[in-house]
């Protein structure tokens, strides 16, 4: 009985630290790691909220990834679009595959000889259960690196702050349904409108949201800058 219990405890402990797909260890400490399936765009497209729709945004992810590695993954921008007449909404969370997702730096052995960096897990980053939402995910400033392995400037770093990350999404990763523009007109406006952003450093606006902290008051590049961002977004590999 005691042994059964011990086994159960060990099993649960193992379950707790293993992931659905174990990708093994990175080949080397090169950046980006060959495991990279997540990054923050190192540069914006630069035309405010006009990303050329989801297609343009995905292409930006794809070309930034292609510039640093040749893994031939398929990349998607973490962006929602809102419903229009004859056109259903698209939820950012449904575009990015199943994960888990790793960032651009090889994991470094920690002092307990563990690989410390937990990857991003779909249900954890979106807080699908109350406990997951309370506990949080490993989406930290140190995890949310660009494809070059660089930190994104946040609050307290040298200006300009670049931590406002375009998502157009609610905290659960789904499109807004309230009728207000939250996506710069589905990523086509560089003037009127508004966009919902998260903070890659998890600091700002009195909350910690990485994907849905606040809305901007416009969609021009200047408006984005005035709120503390430059139009960066998150990219996830779906394979």
């Amino acid at each position: 009985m005691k042994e059964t219990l011990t086994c159960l405890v060990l099993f649960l402990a193992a379950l707790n630290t293993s992931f659905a797909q174990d990708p093994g260890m990175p080949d080397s400490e090169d950046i980006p790691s060959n495991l990279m399936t997540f990054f923050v765009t190192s540069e914006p497209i630069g035309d405010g909220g006009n990303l050329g729709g989801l297609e343009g945004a995905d292409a930006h992810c794809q070309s930034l990834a292609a510039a640093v590695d040749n893994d031939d993954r398929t990349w998607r921008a973490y962006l929602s679009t809102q419903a229009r007449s004859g056109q259903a909404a698209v939820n950012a969370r449904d575009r990015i595959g199943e994960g888990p997702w790793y960032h651009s730096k090889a994991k470094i052995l920690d002092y307990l000889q563990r690989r410390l960096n937990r990857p991003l897990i779909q249900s954890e980053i979106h807080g699908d259960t109350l406990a997951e939402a309370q506990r949080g995910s490993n989406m930290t400033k140190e995890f949310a690196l660009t494809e070059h392995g660089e930190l994104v400037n946040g609050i307290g770093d040298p200006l300009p702050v670049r931590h406002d990350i375009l998502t157009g999404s609610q905290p659960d990763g789904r499109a807004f349904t309230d009728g207000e523009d939250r996506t710069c007109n589905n990523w086509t406006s560089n003037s009127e409108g508004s966009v919902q952003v998260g903070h890659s450093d998890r600091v700002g606006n009195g909350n910690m949201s990485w994907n849905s902290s606040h809305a901007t008051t416009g969609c021009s590049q200047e408006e984005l800058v005035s709120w503390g961002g430059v139009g960066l977004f998150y990219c996830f590999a779906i394979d």
Partner: protein
Amino acid sequence: MTKTRIFIFPFLLAATASSLALAQHGMEGGTPMTFFVTSKPIGDGGNLGGLVGADGHCQALAENVSADGRTWHAYLSTQARPGTFAVNARDRIGTGPWYNFDGVTIARDVAHLHGDTIELARLGNNLTKRTGLTEKGQIVPGLNDYKNSEVAARAAAGARGNEFEYTVSTPYSNRHEVLTGSQLDGRAYPPDLDYTCDNWTNNQDPDPEQNGGRMGAFANKPNVQIGFPDRNGGGNGSWNSSHGTRGCSQMALAMTHGVGMYYCFAIN
């Protein structure tokens, strides 16, 4: 005119808030500090002298820097024992809102602090590395801070026989594991396994034969649940319930990057 007023009002609010935030603690008109992370531990591992001892430490640290006569409680739970009910950390800290050294709001109320609804939990509270300050206004050094320091170098070399000496003698060593003994919702754990170093009275390590080196709660193993004021660690960044420890000695706390600091809240 109406429109102007509507536009001015939020700006006034914002201006007031930021001037409050800039006002230093103790300055006349500054927002009074009602939250801090202890700048130093009691230093005897998980033995804090019970809740009474822990509260006394909060009170003493607060009175070192302020004379505004508040009552301070440690954010710690105790587990049920025969004849004694459990105590939930969330029930010990008053009603908020709580402000840090800089006058910045940590959380509006108990529900905001803990994320009692899934909507609140997904957004999170405002306890971050930049706001989770000690009563002296210090940031609590966290993961990968000062990674080129001598501490990191010696740790990497495996020279980890005297971690507590490192942490107490090295100002910027990682000390971000904060004792709570609490679940994510701020409530006590069930009594069967230890999450509170025996209700803050135990400074012992586990029997090395039985549980040596294991992290977390197991039968007959001294353990304490910790959180991270810098929200970075354990793969989740929970401020109050990320993971357990290797034991309850001061050394065991240091082995996983803590020194036995904890949160203090003013209840009035």
